[in-house]
């Protein structure tokens, strides 16, 4: 009997999923869906919002809000990080109509949700529009999609990049700390001669490479309101790819897979001397290479020509409000508190190592202290400077997960001697265009 049920349910499932799919794509799915619905306070009565995020210990931050706002209670839901499953869950929930009110979305994933018309345009909320000046300009650029009135998230954290380096080893071997990429390549030769590697080239962190390209002036995607342009192989990006390819070919960088114990060990044992990484990388080294306490310092990212002041960014996320939310105004209020108030930013930094996206946030008391692992250097001052040097006009594409996967396959081949980084980017370019087309997203050939 149960078996009949099972057969029946299988049939039902098919039917249901079909209708769900077709009703999803039938409605107002176009990117130009007219002015956003109004952003006004809900009528009287307390409101409960759901907020899905994977920031560790964020419950403790939200508890501070709930204590002060009895009429807007926020319930935290959690899951793995975005690409680990939460983004797919968001898409499923949008389809099924039970998405949370608020969700954490990284900058590089926002356009994907925008294209699927899943996000509420917070630009319609006067409180959000007014908050613009509190944010570091480029972080605001990351959440502004289409024209300036389209604000699809409140910037939460950022990952300005800098150079982590083993000050002791550089000094002992008489190698000057590189200020330009040319000096960095020259130093790489000397480091190799001294028995180490200047750094480990990551074969799977394409967003790190994106940070390098971002700094150099590469612009991978653009959208003119009608269609997308994909340009993973513009001249600036090619310059970066050739630069690293050269270091890989000469075997001046190691190529162990990142985020493994092997990789930690390369730093812990002094085999790798530098890492060009984001502000959150400070904790990765401290926990992965505990034997090197006090020996690391942080300097500005190497520049393409001497005297330039430009930095890249790696990571960072926003708090977005989903279109299905019945209380967008209250949700926006909470998102603003979470990402601009000194109380929340302080807690987020303390509990989860988040680096704020607001100008005032970069001078939190906790970020003005020296860090013992870095010989008491006030490393966050360097990152605060870097945060002001990130170009504001870097746009992500709507299918970054696929782009990352494709590029990463090519990068893995390149580090093992098959093909080059440029080949990998060329292939990723072609497959990205294919992915966009397969999702019926207009794209220029």
């Amino acid at each position, binding site marked *: *009997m*149960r*078996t*009949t049920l*099972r*057969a029946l*349910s*299988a049939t*039902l*499932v*098919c039917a*249901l*999923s079909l209708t*769900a799919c077709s009703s999803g794509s039938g409605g107002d799915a176009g990117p130009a869906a007219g002015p956003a619905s109004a952003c006004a306070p809900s009528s009287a009565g307390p409101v409960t919002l759901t907020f*899905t995020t*994977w*920031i*560790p*210990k964020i419950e403790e931050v939200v508890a501070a809000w709930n204590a002060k706002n009895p009429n807007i209670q926020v319930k935290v*839901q*959690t*899951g*793995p*990080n975005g690409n*680990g*499953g939460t983004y*797919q*869950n968001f898409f*499923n*929930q949008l*389809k*099924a*109509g*039970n998405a*949370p009110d608020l969700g954490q979305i990284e900058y590089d994933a926002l356009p994907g949700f925008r294209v699927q018309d899943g996000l509420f345009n917070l630009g319609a909320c006067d409180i959000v529009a007014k908050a613009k000046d509190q944010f570091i300009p480029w972080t605001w650029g990351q959440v502004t999609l289409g024209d300036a009135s389209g604000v699809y998230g409140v910037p939460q954290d950022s990952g300005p990049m800098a150079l982590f380096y083993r000050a002791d080893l550089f000094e002992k071997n008489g190698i000057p700390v590189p200020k330009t990429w040319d000096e960095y390549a020259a130093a790489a030769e000397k480091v190799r001669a001294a028995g180490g590697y200047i750094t480990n080239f990551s074969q799977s962190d394409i967003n790190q490479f994106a940070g390098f390209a971002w700094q150099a002036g590469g612009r991978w995607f653009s959208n003119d309101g009608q269609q997308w342009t994909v340009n993973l192989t513009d001249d600036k990006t090619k310059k970066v790819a050739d630069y690293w390819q050269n270091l890989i070919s000469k075997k001046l960088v190691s190529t162990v897979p990142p*985020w493994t*114990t092997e990789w*930690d*060990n390369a730093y*812990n044992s002094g085999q790798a001397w530098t890492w060009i990484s984001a502000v*959150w990388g400070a*904790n*990765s080294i*401290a*926990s*992965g*290479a*505990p*034997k090197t306490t006090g020996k690391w310092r942080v300097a500005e990212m190497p520049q393409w020509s001497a005297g330039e002041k430009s930095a890249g960014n790696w990571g960072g996320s926003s708090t977005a409000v989903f279109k299905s939310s019945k209380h967008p105004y209250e949700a926006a209020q909470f998102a603003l508190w979470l990402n601009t108030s000194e109380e929340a930013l302080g807690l987020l930094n303390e509990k*989860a*190592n*988040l680096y704020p996206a607001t100008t005032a946030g970069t001078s939190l008391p906790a970020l003005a202290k020296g860090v013992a692992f870095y010989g008491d250097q006030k490393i966050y001052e360097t990152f605060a400077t870097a945060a002001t040097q990130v170009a504001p006009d870097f746009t992500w594409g709507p299918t970054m997960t696929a782009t990352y996967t494709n590029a990463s396959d090519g990068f893995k081949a390149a580090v093992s001697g098959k093909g080059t980084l440029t080949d990998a980017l060329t292939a990723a370019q072609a497959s990205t265009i294919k992915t966009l087309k397969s999702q019926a997203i207009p794209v220029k050939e």
Partner: protein
Amino acid sequence: MRENLLSRTAAMLVMAVCTVYFLVPVWWLFVGATKSSEQFTGTGALWFADFRLFDNIGDLLAYRDGVFLRWMANSLAYTCGAALLGTLLAAMCGYALAKYRFRGREVLFNVVLSGVLVPATALALPLFLMFSKIDATNTFWAVFLPSLVNPFGVYLARVYASSSVPDELLEAARIDGSGEVRTFFKVSTKLMFPALVTIFLFHFVAVWNNFLLPLIMLSNERLFPVTLGLFTWNTQVNQLPQLRGLVIVGSLLSITPLVVAFLLLQRFWRSGLGAGAVK
């Protein structure tokens, strides 16, 4: 005699290599779980440094008010509950298919059999959409109810019932005035017991390892099974590096119920596998 010795040595060698191959990751996990995070990267991966297993377990249980224990309890509830009930359902279903003649029996059985071929992963999203319609996602039932179904168990139960429960015995029970349900519980289940344990074990492992369904259904951390909880932590390691140590200790603890279940029930496991293979 010499040849015999040679082939035996070869066989032992192959077995030894396999044993090492399968046990090294478990050994690695155990050794890793006893180290502090500093020693985890700093010392050899396959031998002990300072033995801190109990401190590590303490840290794990203290983290976030013991949410890990909650996950373990959830896993046991999902798994034991679904495996017990699912075994009962599969046994009844297989027994009915084996012992009663009715129209459409073979068709029904074939439909069930084809269910074996549908991977649980493929059903997760449709199930999510169905549960969304009745507003039941993100609840205990969203994971529990779909886990009750076990077509392979039905197949095993049918095969075993037709070979181990003689029709004459059922006939005798009927003549003595026993109802069908009573006969099933008092007579047939006793005879089918080894198969039931096997079904239970298979089901237990399948539900314990089912990761995608809870991933899609649940967003309330208090409802997570331990697999999803540990995976969630593991994706947060970049942000909070100390989570890596917790994930390793947690993984070690999370496989212990499986190991215990296997050690206690392995003879049933073996006999059940044999029964399924010959028929």
